[in-house]
């Protein structure tokens, strides 16, 4: 039991919070057909973080946040530039911009041997979920021991704050966000500020991606922005219910993925463990697959409208 507290509690909670937060925002990305944005931003966080490390020489969270934020801005500008100069559609411009910048980040990492610190390509992809160890978590009572609590990995507090921020954002901006997602022209005509809410949504996605990136790597982020929300869309035709489903799917993916990665190989007699991030993302993908096959709202307007006509 002490093992669980020390080794698993914090990674599990962090994974759950990140998954719930990403899935919450993911609902709006999926509805706006902007799924690729989450992908793009979580990728460009890498070169941003590497650049900030090269400049400041530290892995302080604040420096990383700034670096990743600047990289996100550069990417958005680059996407617009490619769109206008190359006259290509936005998803193509996005695909080109974020893969190129991500690749640049990988090269920067290799050139400047940053192996002395905990910053490498694997870390960037899978994160260090398993390394979020709570050394003072010896006993259940540690949960009430101020000294032991002070020893909690700082990532836990960071992702909690980001999670609360995103939750507050969605609640406060709910109405313009929904109206702007459904009908941007109408939203503009009633001064619901669709461009501002768009921008805020992207900023929230960026903050979440960066916080998550640092704690759990980019694989979870990419999967969690899209899979639970896309699966949830297939379960219901009601926005509120869709969000509830997406949260349930995110929770299941995080818990099941973490447990299977840590203990699954042991159950089949293999003395090893798998990457928790990879397993969580895989479970999320599996849920999406199941929703695609069995979800009650797979067939859309075309077939249903005919029966009404």
């Amino acid at each position, binding site marked *: 039991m002490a093992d669980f507290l020390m080794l698993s509690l914090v990674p599990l909670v962090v994974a759950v919070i990140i998954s719930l937060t990403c899935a919450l925002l993911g609902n709006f990305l999926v509805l706006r057909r902007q799924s690729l944005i989450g992908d793009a931003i979580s990728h460009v966080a890498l070169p941003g973080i590497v650049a900030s490390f090269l400049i400041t020489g530290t892995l302080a969270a604040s420096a990383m946040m700034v670096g990743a934020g600047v990289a996100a801005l550069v990417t958005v500008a680059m996407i617009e530039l490619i769109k206008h100069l190359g006259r290509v559609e936005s998803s193509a411009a996005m695909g080109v911009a974020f893969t190129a910048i991500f690749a640049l980040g990988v090269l920067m990492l290799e050139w400047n041997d940053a192996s002395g610190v905990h910053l490498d390509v694997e870390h960037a992809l899978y994160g260090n979920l398993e390394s979020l160890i709570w050394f003072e978590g010896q006993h259940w009572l540690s949960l009430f021991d101020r000294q032991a609590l002070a020893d909690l990995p700082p990532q836990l507090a960071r992702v909690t704050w980001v999670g609360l921020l995103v939750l507050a954002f969605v609640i406060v901006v709910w*109405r*313009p966000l929904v109206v702007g997602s*459904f*009908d941007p022209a109408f939203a*503009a*005509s009633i001064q619901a500020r669709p461009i501002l809410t768009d921008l805020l949504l992207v900023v929230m996605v960026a903050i979440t991606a960066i916080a998550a990136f640092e704690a759990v790597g980019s694989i979870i982020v990419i999967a969690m922005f899209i899979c639970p929300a896309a699966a949830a869309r297939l379960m219901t*035709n009601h926005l509120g219910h869709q969000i509830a489903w997406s949260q349930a799917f995110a929770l299941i993916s995080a818990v099941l993925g973490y447990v299977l990665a840590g203990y699954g190989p042991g159950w089949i007699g293999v003395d090893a463990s798998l990457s928790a991030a990879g397993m969580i993302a895989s479970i999320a993908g599996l849920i999406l697959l199941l929703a695609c096959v069995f979800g009650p709202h797979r067939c*859309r*307007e075309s077939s249903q409208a005919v029966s*009404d006509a």
Partner: protein
Amino acid sequence: MKASRIDDPAISRSPLAIQGLTVSYGQKPVVYSVDFITPPGSLTAIVGPNGAGKSTMLKAALGIKRRLSGEVLVYGEPYEQQSCHVAYVPQRNSVDWDFPATVLDVVVMGLFRDLRWWQLTRRHHRDMALECLCRVGMEAFAKRQIGQLSGGQQQRVFLARALAQSADLTILDEPFAGVDAATEKAIVEVLKSLKRQGKTLLCVHHDLSTVRDYFDHVLLLNVRRIAAGPVDKAFTEKTLQEAYGGRLSSLQLEQIVMPSATTQKV
């Protein structure tokens, strides 16, 4: 000069006065220096060939598209301060009807100004939306998912959302595109009843043969303003030929311009 124009009573009384509006995509102007003062209480059609900039002009007036130059005044004040007086019905195919919302949810969007951003909709909001649905004959569909509606039903839902805004001016972008005859008739009845209440309506319209039956004013547009005024005066063979660049046959023109026998005064 600006002040003197606002002092013009025609402009200060108009629910939408457009002055020198120019919009361009790249180098090419799609709307060029258009002036139009919407007469209050009118039912006005905006008519012109495809690509004449009809929708673009409205979107630029409503701040949805960026305008290169020009002024848009609602009762003599800039649109941005007066947008509460204006309801907008976009083209039906401009939105994703797969969106997880019910018919009632969409109509409640018309009450945006009455609600705080985070506020839950209350019973009287829903009742108000339901009333608007009744006016377009869609109350039975309130709980339906919007993707399950036919094109005509979707258009009526959009109209109900505009009714919920209870605006003085309603701007509609091709409300009759792809709807059945029954829906077209129902929509026209709603528009005419709004006009009887003293509201103003501005409507992009494609079917030249019904302009005379449905509308009292017309704006002929082809990038520039070709003609504007009461239908009898502005909607003539000459102005139509100019707007459509001589692409209409004389037989077509005769049918369009001559008041048809079935026309009824409302």
